[in-house]
């Protein structure tokens, strides 16, 4: 059968092989270029070889952070303690902490969007404002935030909240509005009050969709988080990448970038799996 037709159905093995083509092409062409550059100049820093990256990643993730070497002494330590005192660990922990605070702060946005959709007066009060607020380019607010909140944690978290919360508010609003009117009427005829309709009917129905929307917005959360960290921070994954750029330390930058992608991919996968397991009735589209 012609593989370029709409009803072509690739077999399992073929599909798997096809899905790996671009990955392998990317990896192979990188090492081809890297090999060529290293043949010309053994001290090339732009395209580190795989052994350079592995050793850089090892020293970033297993060796104690340079600032603490002096006080550590020469005592033998377990792998766990060497990981937990490493540069990668500290950066990851700092970034994760900011990430979690920001995501937690998105939940009030969900509640607000829900109430805007359900209570016409709340909606009339907030909707226009958030529609406008949503159009403000959050990064353009960054200097204002630094001036207003200082350059510590608060301004970074505020950047993420300001950047992502309006989207979540409007998304929740639209999701709540899209629940068929019949459902609300039915709940009223069964004796439900306003709050029961809002939370037990509408919120419960849109919750998996809201989780999905938060999941899709995680990339935006990370984008704002990285912007904040790169500009004003003393630790964190993005701070490290920005710092290493000054030394052209590509052997550490490349593993860091892949590490961030892997982490975000795993969070995304976990959220998706939990969402499906917890809501067996949930069907997309």
């Amino acid at each position, binding site marked *: 059968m012609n593989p370029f037709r709409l009803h072509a159905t690739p077999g399992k093995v073929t599909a798997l092989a096809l899905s790996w083509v671009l990955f392998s092409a990317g990896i192979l062409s990188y090492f081809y270029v890297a090999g060529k550059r290293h043949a010309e100049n053994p001290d090339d820093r732009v395209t580190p070889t795989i052994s350079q990256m592995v050793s850089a990643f090892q020293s970033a993730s297993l060796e104690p952070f340079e600032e603490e070497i002096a006080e550590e002494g020469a005592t033998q330590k377990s792998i766990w303690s060497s990981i937990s005192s490493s540069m990668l660990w500290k950066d990851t922990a700092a970034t994760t902490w900011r990430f979690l605070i920001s995501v937690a702060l998105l939940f009030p946005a969900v509640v607000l969007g829900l109430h805007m959709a359900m209570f016409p007066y709340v909606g009339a009060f907030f909707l226009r404002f958030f529609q406008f607020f949503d159009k403000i380019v959050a990064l353009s607010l960054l200097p204002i935030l630094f001036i207003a909140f200082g350059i510590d944690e608060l301004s970074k978290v505020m950047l993420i909240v300001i950047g992502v919360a309006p989207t979540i508010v409007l998304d929740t609003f639209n999701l709540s509005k899209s629940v068929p009117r019949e459902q609300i009427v039915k709940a*009223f*005829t*069964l004796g439900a009050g306003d709050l*029961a309709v809002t*939370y*037990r*009917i509408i919120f*419960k129905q849109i919750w998996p969709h809201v989780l999905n929307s938060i999941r899709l917005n995680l990339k935006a959360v990370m984008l704002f988080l990285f912007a904040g960290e790169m500009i004003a921070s003393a630790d964190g994954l993005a701070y490290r990448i920005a710092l290493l750029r000054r030394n052209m330390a590509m052997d550490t930058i490349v593993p860091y970038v892949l590490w961030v992608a892997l982490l975000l991919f795993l969070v995304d996968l976990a959220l998706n799996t939990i969402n499906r397991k917890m809501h067996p*009735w*949930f069907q997309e589209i």
Partner: protein
Amino acid sequence: MANGQIRVEDAVVDYSAGRGASHRVLNRINLEIGSGEFVSIVGKTGCGKSTLLRLILGEERPTGGRVLVNDQVRAHPDRLCGYVPQKYSLFPDKTVLANVVFGLDVSEFGPLSFFSPQRRRRMREFRATALLYLERTGLTESDAGKYPHQLSGGMQQRVAIAQALIMKPPILLMDEAFSALDPGTRKEMQSLMKDLWRSSGTTVVFVTHNTEEAVCLGSRVIVLSGNSPGEGSRVALDLPVGNLDFGSHPEDIRNLAEQIDRAMLPGLHVESTAAEMSLAYGNAT
């Protein structure tokens, strides 16, 4: 019937058609429906029969005139009227059992007593009652744990009827409840509905576009029809058919339905044709 349970007095409904223009849907409807009647409301698509139902439900208010149930003006949907719409009648996030139990639960326990031990105890009784109602509407215990999307259309409407009846509403409003079902299932549901009406004694207002269904189900058939578009529908025919025993004469149902359909044809003088039919069939009671 000086004191009908449902009284529609001179009800007029206009919908705005944009640019200040308005479109009349219902034109001075006067109706009185007594307790325990089974009223079929039939008419062509867009004649306002669903609007009339929503007036009784309290979801819409008339532009002119008033709608009373038990001498109270309808303000919003509540437990006085059970509701079974054509679509979206079940809560998709709840199992069949939870759907049926919901009304009992939510009307007895508010948000504050959600986690009370009393609720847990009462829920066991609620579930037993719900299973009883599921059985009465022709479902089995094995269906109780399923989600609505796992049920066929007919089964979903069975659950929706059980969900409404468990609240023992004085009035049950059904909006094209069987219109999406295949003919076989539809026949089954019609006889089920008739049995349930006889045993529960509730008033039923059943909206349908299918004249045969209206005649076969109702103890009284009301035809809504307008003489010209934009002028709004009136009650063209109000025919008591309750004492006509159609059980053994399905062809009689078809004949009467055909006559009613003919009376609704445009160009004909609806009122005069209707008057003739009232004479012919009204006398039979």
